[in-house]
């Protein structure tokens, strides 16, 4: 019987050793002495969000290498760890949408700074089935509006702007599951324009999108984020990173099909090619704006950011902060 126990133990050890030797997907180029190393952690799982795409393309097409950068590309599991890791300095760059960035600077006071605004307009919107027949958010009265986690501030602003009575609208926490809308459990559901609509249309549903930007409500999208300390001590590396990433984004703009193939390398077989193409095309629309035309791609406008911060203060009882500290255009100006 001792013999058998030994056999079982040895088998277990072999299995565990084989597991430990399994490498994770994603490439890590070999380090040559002249390269500077840094870590980029995408703020969510691998997909065709524009800031991610810039990094994927820069990695695969050698834009980082050309600037002597050795970048480890990683992905956040989706619970906010990426912000903590950047604040601690364990990761140099991550991504985050501007509203969350501003909120985290306020509470708990993470020293995070955006150094490139890729989504000049946010992707947040609200979807309803065309069959509901809504013509404006005023029609949401006496219906159910879902939300993920907490009701987003733009929801309240949107309802107010459309002249609807918030008290006549039922709000329900539904978490991530767009099927809730298609199955009719809620009438309105928060989405990212570049994401869920594709799924729902693929399922054969026609949807209406309600974009808070259309109602004059401030909306800003994804940024490249670093910490104040990294910005102070490694701004050169960050500058090179940003250059390469934007070069990657512009390449993707010209070669979207190729860019999608690159994304799929990171995203894996669970991901749908057309979905990624849809996401890329949607987000490219918000890369440029009058502000970037006047300055450069990735530019932050103080008035724009202040308006967003004010929205958060009004609807989310956020403590006001000095918004000018939440972003920097310095690295964009080094051109």
């Amino acid at each position: 019987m001792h013999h058998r126990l030994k056999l079982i133990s040895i088998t277990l050890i072999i299995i565990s050793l084989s597991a430990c030797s399994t490498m994770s997907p994603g490439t890590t180029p070999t380090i040559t002495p002249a390269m500077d190393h840094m870590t980029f952690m995408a703020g969510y799982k691998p997909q065709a969000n524009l800031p991610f795409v810039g990094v994927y393309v820069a990695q695969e097409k050698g834009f980082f290498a050309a600037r002597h950068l050795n970048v480890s590309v990683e992905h956040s599991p989706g619970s906010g760890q990426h912000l903590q890791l950047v604040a601690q300095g364990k990761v140099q760059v991550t991504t985050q949408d501007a509203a969350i960035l501003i909120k985290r600077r306020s509470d708990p006071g993470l020293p995070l700074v955006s150094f490139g605004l890729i989504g000049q307009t946010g992707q947040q919107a609200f979807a309803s089935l065309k069959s509901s027949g809504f013509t404006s958010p005023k029609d949401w009265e006496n219906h159910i509006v879902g939300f993920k986690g907490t009701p987003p501030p733009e929801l309240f602003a949107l309802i107010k702007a459309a002249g609807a009575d918030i008290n006549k609208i039922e709000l329900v926490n539904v978490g991530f599951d767009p099927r809730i809308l298609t199955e009719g459990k809620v009438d309105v559901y928060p989405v990212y324009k570049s994401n869920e609509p594709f799924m729902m249309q693929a399922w054969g549903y026609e949807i209406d999108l309600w974009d808070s930007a259309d109602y004059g409500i401030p909306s800003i999208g994804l940024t490249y984020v670093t910490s104040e300390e990294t910005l102070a001590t490694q701004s050169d590396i960050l500058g090179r990173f940003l250059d390469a990433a934007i070069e990657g984004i512009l390449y993707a703009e010209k070669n979207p099909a190729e860019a999608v193939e690159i994304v799929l390398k990171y995203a894996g077989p669970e991901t749908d090619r057309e979905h990624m193409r849809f996401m890329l095309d949607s987000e490219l629309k918000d890369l440029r704006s009058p502000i970037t035309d006047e300055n450069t791609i990735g530019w932050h406008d103080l008035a724009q950011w202040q308006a967003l911060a004010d929205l958060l203060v009004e609807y989310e009882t956020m403590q006001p902060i000095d918004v000018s500290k939440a972003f920097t255009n310095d690295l964009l100006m080094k051109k």
Partner: protein
Amino acid sequence: MQPNKSQKTLLITLSIVLIFFIGWEVGVLLTDTPVYLLPAPSRIIQTLVLHPETFTQATVLTLGEALTGLLIGVLAGILLATVLTLLPGIEDGVMTLAILIKSTPMVAIAPLLTLWLGFGVLPKIIITALMSFFPVLINVLSGMQRVDPALLDLFKSWNASRWEIFRHLRAPSAIPYLFTALKITGPLSLIGAVVAEWTGASGGLGRTMWLAYTNLNLPFLFAAIFILAASGMLIYRITTWAEAKAVFWQPAQMNS
């Protein structure tokens, strides 16, 4: 040839499983359920077959994490039970600590571990070990303490020392109890690894499930679930097989 009893049991089991899957397939077909709500088994199998490398890699990783954590947890449980049996004075204190660990929800600890140790296999192994260790500790301790009083009398009449009683009586007595614990923690370790992966992983079945879910790629999600279920069953069967060999003097509890 008349099928013997175990062949009959196998046949019955397979039939039940087959009926279940056929029913599922037909149900989806008849109700025209969309794939993003509930995929048909045929579609799930198809997904499995089309991505053998992805699933194999993920399975090996998760199984590796689970089994490594299981091994560590089991060894820790046995070791601690041994110490507590040989040094009964510290039992209360140590058990209080063990219960504290056990009562802390893993869902709270897992993200912390991920933050400290990264997305590699280590946090998963730790979580799985923590989950596996308590049932083993409790059961093995029970087995070591609850020996047949008649045997204890006998050993005392032989003037056996505490260590001799442990080695010849308590330790072997605990083996059936160990296997009872293993039947629980074996499949549980798999769940532990998967849950730990949900809080951050670079690979594995848990990660595949999370990615598939957020893409609402249900065939992929279910394929991973199938693999997990099959793995859990395999682990359980291996455990009962080993139990029959190790605890040969007790017939398995089966209705004849």
